[in-house]
């Protein structure tokens, strides 16, 4: 297939994924909005008032970037893992596999759906945050580039999960046992400067820490880690996971007998 045709196949998949996200908005957009509202009310408003300031900001202001990022991460991952595994389970993934559609288009099309959902939910959570606190954006470029790159990383992660998944249990194990702990321990609710030195060093092995802090730097101008190192780590993850997806799909792992 010519490159023009390959772009058409990518556009088709993007359109399909976007329409899926919008068609099931009650499942994709509403639940995270309710969850994040509860976080703002309980952690920010009720408990946060007793905590006082963190890194020079009200606790509510401090956790707002973390909560936005948490919703972006969870939804980017969740969208791709459920969409791709659903297509595998119902076997309509074969529509793409029998067509001369390039692997990169299959990956980017699914990632686009995950990024769209992640950013939509992130935008709605930002609007909710406005009801509870002031939302600052110190550096719009860092804020947007970090959130988009992070969304891409977790959309790719969701795709790898879905490629290997054989049953529905397999698409809930990673989010429950890996993603949630890493996110909660990734500096969403606290600065790692509050941790003992050993715990701080262990936290530095958590990639989500870099993403949350880079995003917080874009919004508030404060970060526990070096912003350049954060960018390098996010980009390395994005490129690495994309490469892994290419290899897995080309080899037919989990999708061909």
């Amino acid at each position, binding site marked *: 297939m010519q490159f023009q045709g390959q772009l058409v*196949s990518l556009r088709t998949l993007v359109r399909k994924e976007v329409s899926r996200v919008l068609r099931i908005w009650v499942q994709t957009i509403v639940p995270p909005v309710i969850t994040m509202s509860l976080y703002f009310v309980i952690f920010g408003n009720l408990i946060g008032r007793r905590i006082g300031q963190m890194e020079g900001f009200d606790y509510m202001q401090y956790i707002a970037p973390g909560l936005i990022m948490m919703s972006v991460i969870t939804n980017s991952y969740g969208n791709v893992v459920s969409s791709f595994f659903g297509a595998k389970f119902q*076997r*309509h993934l074969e529509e793409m596999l029998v067509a*001369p559609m390039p692997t990169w288009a299959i990956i980017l099309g699914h990632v686009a759906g995950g990024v769209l959902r992640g950013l939509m939910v992130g935008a709605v959570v930002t609007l909710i945050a406005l009801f509870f606190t002031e939302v600052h954006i110190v550096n719009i470029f860092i804020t947007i580039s970090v959130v988009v790159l992070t969304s891409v990383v977790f959309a790719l992660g969701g795709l790898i999960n879905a490629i290997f998944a054989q049953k529905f249990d397999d698409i809930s194990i990673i989010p429950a046992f890996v993603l949630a702990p890493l996110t909660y321990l990734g500096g969403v609710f606290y600065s790692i400067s509050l941790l003992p030195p050993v715990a701080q060093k262990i936290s530095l092995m958590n990639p989500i820490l870099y993403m949350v802090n880079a995003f917080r730097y874009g919004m508030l101008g404060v970060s526990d880690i070096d912003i350049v190192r954060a960018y390098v780590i996010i980009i390395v993850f994005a490129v690495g996971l994309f490469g892994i997806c290419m290899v897995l799909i080309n080899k037919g792992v989990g999708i061909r007998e």
Partner: protein
Amino acid sequence: MYALSIRNLVKVYANGVMALRGIDLDVAEGDFFALLGPNGAGKTTVIGIITALVTKSVGEVEVFGHSIDGDLDAAKACLGVVPQELNLNAFDRVENIIVNQAGFYGIAKKRAQFRAQECLEQMHLWDRRNEVARNLSGGMKRRLMIARALVHSPRLLILDEPTAGVDIEIRRSMWKFLKEINQAGTTIILTTHYLEEAENLCRHVAIIDDGRLIQHHPMAEFLRTLRQQTYLVTTMDPIAEIPRLEGFVVGQINEHELEIEVRRESDLNDMFVALSAVGIRVISMRNKTNRLEELFFDLTERKNAVSDEGIA
């Protein structure tokens, strides 16, 4: 050039099951080809390998001269496939499913919408275009899969049990449609359990059993190898006892119906002469079973008998 050329195709699944044991097969361009075999014979594995849904262990496959190893995209572009099991997005609209499939083949949206309308009209589904796939009946879902397979105008259409679970009326209309597109130049490979379907539609037939190709002939030549046929004969007058017909095996179904086996060396005139000689007047006659079906069982059972002897 062949529409499909397969050489020494072997497939061993990860669990050690050897589904194909070295298949060689050529399908000429423009042919209507039947691939038959009992359940588990390897038909679906062959189709899976051709359509890149199953990875082969050994062998070569070419579609219109394009190797699936070296030129897979070109091979895929020539192919349309209707799988045995439903593989539709149950929650998507009928028209979307077809337009998206065209898009996956690189057909721009405007052209894709035009082709979707054409294919859905051909399959009598255009008035259901806004329904989600899960609301369609079983027969409609099958027709939707055929429309989806045709949207990019493939040169080779592969149908794996396309009329399974479809009522007779729709089956007949699908046969008519498949004959039309074959006459228009599309090569068709069909697997089916309805052997009548293969006999009516196909010009060549191959039988796969236990991962091996055991027969591959033109349909007419194939049917000539039939050793005997069984006819059900309805008589004008009631029959008191089973008549003795020289050279024929006769059974009685009821007082107006006989079952007569005619061997290949005899002909129907001999049978009518024998019936007249004992005073039986025939008002109608039909094949007890489909001729191809008899041949199919004959071949596969003969092979099994040989295997059993080998084991003994």
